[in-house]
């Protein structure tokens, strides 16, 4: 009888009999060994502005070579990429793109970074790790766009190769993570702290979903956790929910809710709090935390003005943290 395997990539710790797949749908027990089914087979490949990740403190106005495979280890009811994240690889249109081809295409298209994104790159871990190693050797920045539901050991192996992470901190209660995402909050918070300690540049995103996580207390608790555990310089992006997937009956997040969330974050002492998905909002811009001057003006994903020179405010020379060059 062939042995059971236990995947230790994420905290689901799926135990798989011969032929069984993990909850992510893309890892399988074959002949008593665990295999990825999506190595080198992305189903989404695009060149995006880096601001779309969202990353506002990394290589402004640069292009990011972005890719994803099918599958995901979460089940978020609001997922905007559910067609690929909640599908096995057999149901997506994949292309053959090994790690060396990813790096070559990124360089040929004048991209300065590679983003592992759209679904969740935790589930295509081996592909991401091999590509990230090559990318770093070739002077490219690696962007880990993730919900951070990953075990410590694989995360520690990955950290030396990823310079920046855009992390979804979806809520601040275990109940929210269980009911909305079929995951757990504790491991996510632990992974965020690990990346922070390892020197990975972090930017966090919180999608505000009406009636689910839009209470001022929840937003305040989330901001407080960030300030207490990571410090005031980690950027936080509040993002607007649009009816999607299993939550089509809910309305979009009101603009006032996002504006209020930003006020709460700034009042809690966070220096960089942004509002996404609302064009022309002042929360699209970066301001100096010391003199309040406008540093980076954005409209949508476009940078219209940049007053950061050598990583400092042009006006008062305060250090503005980020990866600016």
């Amino acid at each position, binding site marked *: 009888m062939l042995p059971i*395997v236990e995947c230790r990539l994420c905290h689901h710790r799926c135990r798989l009999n011969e032929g069984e797949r993990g909850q992510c749908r893309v890892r399988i027990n074959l002949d008593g060994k665990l295999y990825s089914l999506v190595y080198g087979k992305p189903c989404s490949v695009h060149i995006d502005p880096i601001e779309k990740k969202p990353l506002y403190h990394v290589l402004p106005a640069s292009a990011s070579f972005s890719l994803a495979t099918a599958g995901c280890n979460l089940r978020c009811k609001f997922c905007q990429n559910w067609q690929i994240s909640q599908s096995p690889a057999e149901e997506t249109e994949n292309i053959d793109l090994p790690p060396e081809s990813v790096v070559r295409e990124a360089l040929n298209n004048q991209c300065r970074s590679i983003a592992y994104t759209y679904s969740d790159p935790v589930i295509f871990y*081996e592909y991401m790790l091999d590509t990230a190693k090559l990318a770093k050797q070739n002077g490219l920045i690696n962007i880990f766009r993730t919900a951070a539901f990953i*075990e410590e050991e694989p995360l520690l192996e990955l950290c030396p190769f990823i310079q920046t992470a855009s992390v979804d901190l979806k809520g601040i209660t275990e109940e929210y993570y269980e009911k909305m995402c079929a995951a757990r909050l504790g491991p996510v918070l632990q992974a965020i702290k690990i990346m922070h300690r390892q020197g990975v540049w972090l930017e966090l995103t919180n999608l505000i979903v009406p009636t689910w996580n839009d209470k001022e207390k929840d937003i305040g608790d989330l901001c407080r956790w960030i300030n207490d555990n990571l410090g005031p310089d980690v950027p936080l992006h509040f993002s607007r929910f649009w009816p999607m997937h299993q939550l089509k009956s809910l309305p979009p997040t009101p603009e006032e809710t996002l504006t209020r969330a930003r006020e709460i974050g700034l009042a809690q002492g966070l220096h960089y709090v942004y509002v996404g998905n609302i064009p022309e909002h002042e929360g699209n811009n970066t301001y100096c935390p010391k003199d309040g001057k406008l540093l980076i003006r954005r409209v949508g994903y476009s940078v219209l003005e940049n007053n950061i020179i050598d990583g400092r405010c042009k006006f008062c020379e305060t250090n503005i943290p980020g990866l600016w060059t």
Partner: protein
Amino acid sequence: MSQKNLSRRGFLRFLGGLFVGLFAIRWQKIHDMFSPKDTRPGLKEAKHYSRGNEMAG
């Protein structure tokens, strides 16, 4: 053959060539639509897992 007939024949040949060219482009697009995508799985042994009696508990 009159000049008028030669011009008409040339114009008809041009139209014929144009249609052949357009059809070739359209055929290629149709062919691409139904060409099989890469359906082979990207099989690679995973990292970070344990087998059988290596598992605790």
